[in-house]
């Protein structure tokens, strides 16, 4: 493959690909929530959130914390959450990750997964608490399968993001 761009068009293409792939894949992942299945138990992982988290942990520099506000608003509108839920949760997770990253110098995949586990647990527990406040007093126990599935889904999503990242920068 030719790595030297031959024309202005090719430069533009590579530039936009580099800039837009993370945002576009995250938006598509959020839209996966519209996948036409009707289920009786919350089982699927929140793939939009996993993609956002995966990109943020792999490439901390591509998004400022404010990007999470915009993605959160989009997710709230698409998935029918009360407006403000994903906005508040995702942005506070971004801010917390910024705080952690100035303090922890060492970084590898297992650390990323650890941060992801804490973030996923916080996200699911907070969403559950908001649902309780809104008059849906369900038992937290029935969210445990979803919690486990989401934690185990993170490495898979991370793999996909690593692949996308290589393609983006190629």
């Amino acid at each position, binding site marked *: 493959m030719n790595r030297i761009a031959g024309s202005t068009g090719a430069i533009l293409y590579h530039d936009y690909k580099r800039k837009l792939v993370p945002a576009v894949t995250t938006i598509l992942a959020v*839209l996966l*929530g*519209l*996948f*036409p*299945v*009707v*289920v*009786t*138990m*919350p*089982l*699927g*992982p*929140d*793939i939009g959130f996993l993609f956002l988290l995966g990109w943020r942990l792999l490439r901390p520099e591509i998004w*400022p*914390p*404010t990007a*999470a*506000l915009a993605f*959160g608003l989009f997710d709230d*509108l*698409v*998935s*029918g*959450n*009360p*407006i*403000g*839920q994903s*906005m*508040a949760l995702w*942005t*506070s997770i*971004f*801010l917390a990750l910024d705080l952690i990253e*100035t*303090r*922890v*110098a060492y970084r590898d995949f297992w650390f990323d997964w650890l941060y992801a586990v804490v973030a996923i647990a916080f996200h699911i527990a907070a*969403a*559950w608490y*908001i*649902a*309780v*406040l*809104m*008059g*849906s*007093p*369900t*038992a937290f126990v*029935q*969210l445990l399968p*979803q919690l486990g599935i989401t934690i185990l889904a993170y490495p898979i999503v991370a793999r996909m993001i690593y692949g996308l990242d290589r393609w983006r920068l190629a």
Partner: protein
Amino acid sequence: MAPPRRRRTGQSRRAQYGRFATYVVAVGGVVISLFLLALSVLDPRAFQAVRNLAIDVTAPISRAGSFVVSEVTSFSQSVGDYFEAGRQNGELRDRVRELEGQLTQAQAAQLENDRLRALLQLRDTTADEVAIGRLVNSSWDSARRYAILSAGSEQGVAYNMPVRAPEGLVGRVVTVGNWGARVLMIIDGASTVPVRSARDGTPALAVGTGDSELRVELIEVGTNPFRPGDMIVTSGVGGIYPPDIPVAEIVRIEGDFAIARPLAAPSRVDYAIVQPLYQPAAVPPSEGGSAPAEAPR
């Protein structure tokens, strides 16, 4: 490691201020979204206009894909059926024998019913339907149990209207777009349906548990009259749900409660019927009805 003492991003003032502003906006954004969230918690119908619009944009996406998924689901269902054919055959034969007996009883009851109706000159008060739509999507990654219906205000759907399938009650409408509506399913924790036992008419409330079941709570204190296998139907109390829509079948008893499984399993319901409010005059205007304001005393 302690945070570095100087957290400057570089020598450029512009970069430093830009980064600072980002954090100000992000923290401010969290505060504002918590405020929006508090508004939504206090008034679940807040921001209705924005959310109605979002429904209109997203419902067609789910609708386009729903054909593919239902094909896949029915295929896996038929593979399963093939392997269980022998056992199912025996079960079905027993069931047919049992049902034949019940059919005779039902025919007798129907005859008597017709006679009594004629005697009382009752009109058949089956509520007409507002619209028919497809259930195209449900929230599969959150604790709430919403479904999206492919019919909206263009078809006459309005807030709080009951939604049912031929098998039984599905839920009620909570958000209405022009071409789509969001349905709060009866299994959601925020859903309460006034019901009664089809066998002896014991009034109860069917509250969603968030998984695939309902908790049936007795209104009158006493011994639990429910037995596994009992059917529960809507009672018409409250004015939203019309009476006598089948809701669920009791599967087990837990102390003062009974646990029931909905007859219209949301994962298998294809088409749903939206019905008008049963008694709009009994439902307050804020809930979509037309109840007169309470007279001052």
